């Protein structure tokens, strides 16, 4: 009898703790998808909640997962760093919120002056395996490919922008789970080449693409070609708090947040 009362008390106490949280519930916007969009979405959400009664829950997992989740109604908005595909589920609306660049990067000990699209395709598809076959390389020896794994939006965008639909990245490439790990691997290996998001180029040599160096300024001016879009995906037209947030993202205040590290859209 005594033990029974003990358990009851414990359960009631727990319930009491849980009650206030439920009572204070604000409308919640849930997001899932691209790991590249997530930092921007978190920044925009952080600035937005200061003045609006709304809560955010941001999950990651890759662009395709974001698109899938929102199509099945599991989240309010999906984050995608790839453009809409014909194979995507119907009835989705892609809202563009920013643009972002992908840099091809090498070790600072091998500062390549320029790469064309054909050269990048040759290197990453494994057709060209030695630096001595790459004009402008300061070193000889093998090429070490450092790439992202399949769930990555950066991988998707690299595939679309640089490789095209018919070429695959060589299977011997080392697939890293995050931009930071790609960055670290390139920085410590003279023979390495890989691709990273704009925000992960410290300590690397960013290779100019088609003669234009990979920088935020060149991306903003529209000269740099390695640019992709960041999208917030909604099922149908966005409604309620989510629509208000997307509208706010187009405001001047939000655009200045975007401009700190990304390219605002006009």
């Amino acid at each position, binding site marked *: 009898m005594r033990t029974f009362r003990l358990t009851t008390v414990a359960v009631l106490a727990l319930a009491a703790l849980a009650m206030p949280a439920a009572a204070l519930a604000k409308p919640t916007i849930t997001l899932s998808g691209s790991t590249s969009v997530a930092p921007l979405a978190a920044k925009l959400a952080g600035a937005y909640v200061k003045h609006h009664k709304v809560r955010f829950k941001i999950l990651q997992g890759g662009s*395709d997962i974001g698109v899938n989740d929102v199509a099945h109604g599991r989240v309010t908005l999906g984050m995608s760093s790839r453009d809409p595909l014909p*194979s995507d589920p119907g009835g989705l609306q892609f809202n563009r919120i920013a643009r972002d660049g992908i840099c091809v990067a090498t070790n600072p000990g091998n500062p390549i002056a320029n790469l064309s699209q054909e050269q990048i395709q040759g290197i990453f598809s494994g057709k060209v395996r030695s630096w001595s076959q790459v004009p402008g390389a300061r070193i000889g*020896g093998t090429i070490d490919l450092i790439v992202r794994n399949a769930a990555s939006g950066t991988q998707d965008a690299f595939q679309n922008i640089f490789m095209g639909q018919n070429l695959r990245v060589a299977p011997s490439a080392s697939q890293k789970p995050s931009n930071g790990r790609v960055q670290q691997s390139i920085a*410590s290996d003279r023979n390495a080449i890989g691709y990273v998001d704009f925000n992960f180029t410290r300590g690397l040599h960013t290779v100019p693409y088609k003669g234009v160096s990979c920088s935020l300024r060149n991306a903003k001016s529209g000269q740099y070609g390695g640019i992709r879009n960041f999208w917030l995906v909604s099922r149908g037209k966005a409604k309620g708090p989510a629509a208000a947030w997307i509208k706010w993202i187009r405001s001047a205040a939000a655009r200045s947040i975007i401009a700190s590290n990304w390219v605002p859209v006009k």
Partner: protein
Amino acid sequence: MTTKVAQPSPGLLDSLWETVSKPWTDKRAELVLGALACSVLVLIAGMVIFVFVKAWPSFSHNGLSWFGSGGNVDQQLDDIFNSTKTGHGYDYHLRAWPLLWGTILTTVGAVVLGLAVALFAAVFIVEFAPDWLRRVLDPVVRLLAAVPSVIYGLIGILVIVPFVGNHLISAGRKESVAYVVQLTGASLIVAVLILTVMITPIMLAIIVDALRSVPRGWTEGAAALGVNRWRVMWTISVRAARPAIVAAAVLATARALGEAIMLSMVSGSIGFAPNPLDGITFFFEPTRPLAATIVDRADALSAPPLGQTLYAFAAVLLVSAMFLSLAGWLAKQPLKKYGAGA
């Protein structure tokens, strides 16, 4: 109901504390502790069932060839992930041998290497080390055993991997296998060495304790017969401590088997099966054990078929861990009659 729950009066908590802090009757202790122990069992059973239910599609689609080799495992994982986009149903095709082989190589390599080092070091600490050195070594070993694996991983990725890649692997060696696999320094040898450093302190601590608990009468009796300390150590102390040595090896193997973060960082992130026929190059080839693969691919967990494949990896690790405990228990049985130690 709601009003009663919303404000727990302090009296309730007080009486709760009172009942808990009073000396327990044996009956209550038995009940409460029994319930705790049983809930652990239920938890483990639930976890095993959950993992196997999740993993089933991957096993059932591939059959026994799941464990075989064929094709590029990274490509297969990519295809499994991308099959959610095509709309033609999920793809489960997988030949996981390179990952299994990587797990076996790193684990066995590190445990064999670590066991040898730990055994000799333990004999030294117990029997030969001068007192001052023993006083330093004892706490250092225990401290090393508690270092989180991610720290070893960081040292590996920032210092050892670049060193191996830039100084130990020649350009000629890299070129000789360039069409099969790239050698960047993140390799089998680095993985095994760091894993050895990680698991040796645990084994060392256990073996030292076991050697110390050998009854003094046994060793002193031998010494009185004129046997030197080295022989006493090998013929009596180490022999008597064999159950503890087995236990140490089992514990270390379990840790090596489940190590994920560090191995994901230093072993190369390529699902490649290092080939012993390659000679020295074998040691510099990259690999990626099961647990590290789960870490590397965890961001794709919500793509159903890849998630189920990762659960299949987890199931294999779980079963290996169970067989490991069983094997350890079996190995200890005939040794038990010599007594002493765990």
